[in-house]
Structure formats: C-alpha cells, structure tokens
C-alpha cells in the first residue's frame, strides 16, 4: 500500500432495516463520526430477506473508524443485537489519506 496512506478499520454491518434508528444511535454513543448506508436484501440464518416490503428489507451500514472504535462497536453489537436480530458484522483494513477525519 501507498506509504501516504493511514491504516483504518472499515466496519460493515448488514442488518434488518427496521433497527436502523436504534443501531445508529448506539454507534453514535460509541463515538462513530460518520456512516454510509445502502439498501440491501439477502439470505442467512433468519431466512429470505427479499426486501419486498419494509419488514423483509436489509440495510448495509459502513463505518470507517479507528480499530478501537470498531472493537467497541462490535462488542455493543454482540451484547445487544446478535441474539435477537438478523445481522452480520465484519471488519477489514483499509487505507485513507485524511487520518484525522475518521
């Protein structure tokens, strides 16, 4: 990777669209400063989420942040959301130019 790039964490959460509000509020409490959402559909343990109507639609949330924020977010997801909601979360390493922005 380009040496000008700073390492950051990209946390991706794919979950039921109906929990968007509380989930974003939880992320904000943890210290996340930005996020991006795309509409999604899919399949998993909780069956077919075909996005035919609001109750079967998913969203895909991306958060670019420091690794400690990503860890805190994962822990919050684990304790509050994993058990009851259709939701997956994964993190990957990415490089950015403006480290102070995220």
């Amino acid at each position, binding site marked *: 990777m380009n040496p000008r790039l700073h390492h950051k964490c990209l946390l991706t959460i794919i979950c039921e669209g*109906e929990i968007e509000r509380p989930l974003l509020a939880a992320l904000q409490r943890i210290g996340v400063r930005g996020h991006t959402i795309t509409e999604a559909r899919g399949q998993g343990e909780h*069956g077919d989420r*075909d996005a*035919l*109507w609001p*109750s079967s639609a998913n969203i895909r949330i991306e958060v670019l942040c420091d690794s400690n924020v990503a860890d805190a977010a994962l822990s919050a997801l684990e304790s509050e959301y994993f058990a*009851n909601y259709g939701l997956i979360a994964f993190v990957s390493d990415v490089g950015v130019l403006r480290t102070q922005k995220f």
Partner: protein
Amino acid sequence: MPFEPVILFFLLGLFAGIIRSDLKIPAVLYDSLSIFLLLAIGIKGGIELARHSLAALAGPALAILAAAALIPLIAFVVLYRLGRLARADAASLAAHYGSVSVVTFAVAASFLSRNEIAYDGYMVVFLVLLEFPALLLGVVLARGGGSQTRWGPMLREVLGGKSIVLLIGGLLIGWLAGADGIKPLDRLFLDLFKGVLAFFLLEMGLVVASRLGDLRKAGAFLIGFGMAMPLAAATIGLLVGQFLDFSVGSSVLLATLFASASYIAAPAAMRIAIPEANPALSIGAALGVTFPFNLLLGIPLYHDMAERLNGVFQ
C-alpha cells in the same frame, strides 16, 4: 353474495409468488402505494367527520376502545397459556391482533360499496384510534409488569409511525378542507383509490407468498389461531356494533377492524420494543393466515353475521 374483484389481484400476486415468477413489485412502489392509501383513507374520513359532531363520537369511541382492549388480552392468554408460546412471542402476537390492518378495512369498505350497503364515513376515526393502544399493551404484556421498558422511544416510534401520521394527517386535511376544498384532488385520491387498492393487493399477494415459509415455523397451533382469533374478535366487534346501534355496514367495518391484524405499524414497533419476539411467528400468522382469511372468507362472513344479528335484535 357477489365476489369482490380486487381480491382477484391478491390471488394473482399470491399465485405469481408461489410459482416463483420473476414478477417483483419494487419495494418503492409498495411504499408509495401504501402512503397513497393511508392518506386517501384519512382524507375520506376527515371529510365525513366534518359532517358530524366530534362530541357525539366520544362515547362510541370509548366503548370501542374498551372492548378492543379485550382482543390482545384474549390473544395473549390463548397463546401463552394454551399455545405455550414464549412470553415475548405471545405478547408481540397479541399486539399485532389488537391493532388493525388498513388494507383489510379498505377491502371491507369496498365490499360494502359494491353490495350497496351503507356505512358511516367516520369509521375511519376508529381505525386510527385502534391502531396503537394494542401496541403499548403488547409491550406491557411482554415485560410482565417489569419496569424495563423505555416508553419514550417506544411512544415516539409508535406515534411517529407513518401509518398514524398519514391517517391523522389525512383526517385533518379532509376535515379542514372539506369536500369542496378537496374536490380538485378527487381525481387522484377518490377516483383512483380502488385501482390503487387492487395494485397494492397484487403486491400483498406476492408478500404473503414469500411469507408462507414462515407458516412452517409457526406450526399448526398458530395457523388455527390465525383463523379462530379473527372470528372471535369479529364477534366482539359485531356485539359492540349492536350495542352502539350501528348500521349493518358500520358493524361489518367494526368487526373487520377487530378481526384484522396489523402488518404495517405492529411489525416495525414490535421489532424495536420486544426484540426477543420472533417476527416469523407474528408475521406468519398475521400476514400468512389472517390477512387472506379475512379477505377471502372473513369479510363476507362478518356481513352475514351482522345481517343475522340485526334480525335477532330487531
């Protein structure tokens, strides 16, 4: 009893879904049509409301609210005790059945018009009133009196829900503008209503087909519940209608409201308020069983029952 053509659209959607046709109605169209239907129903109700004294509706409203509170309670006891469902699931289902389905109401109104049976336009007010109390009751039932519930966000979620906002907003617009003020909008909100309802039912057919898999998870008990509960609730509704001296048409609408289960406001609110409840059960029962049951069998049956009851008491 002549059959209601809009139901054919529901059956077409159901069929297309079951054969796994590539017919997919975009989610955005679902949203758009449901916004239209909620607003239009509200506006129509508001125009009618302007012709009545609000005070005169207060008494019936209270009686209806009190009787309607029975439905989630009965549902909860049946599901929790008899059906041995988890407390959260029983409570969430109770909330769904205690609340109402706007589309089922619209189909019942359309059934009555088609059969030239008069009903009071202000029934929409009861539709609005019945939408959310059961959701709060469901949360109380789930918590078992515990005090953990964060009522603030819950109330905001429910009262800011799009169905409440559009129905009440529509009511107010219709009430303030009156039939004359709305006239230039009639081409959209009145004339197209039935066609849009047909289109929406096509979509509902597809949605129901995609939820049939949930029925397996729900099991036989819940499928039975999904048919018995509307019958019981409709009976309560008819008796209340009789008690309030409602016309046959208005009684059928009230019975339909009682018999119907919510699948717009309730699923969204329950997902947040009772996270432990499995939505496959409530949606499987409310949408997979009760919605088609009411459309295909329930509404004509409630009409039949209303006619008989009317005969008995006259």
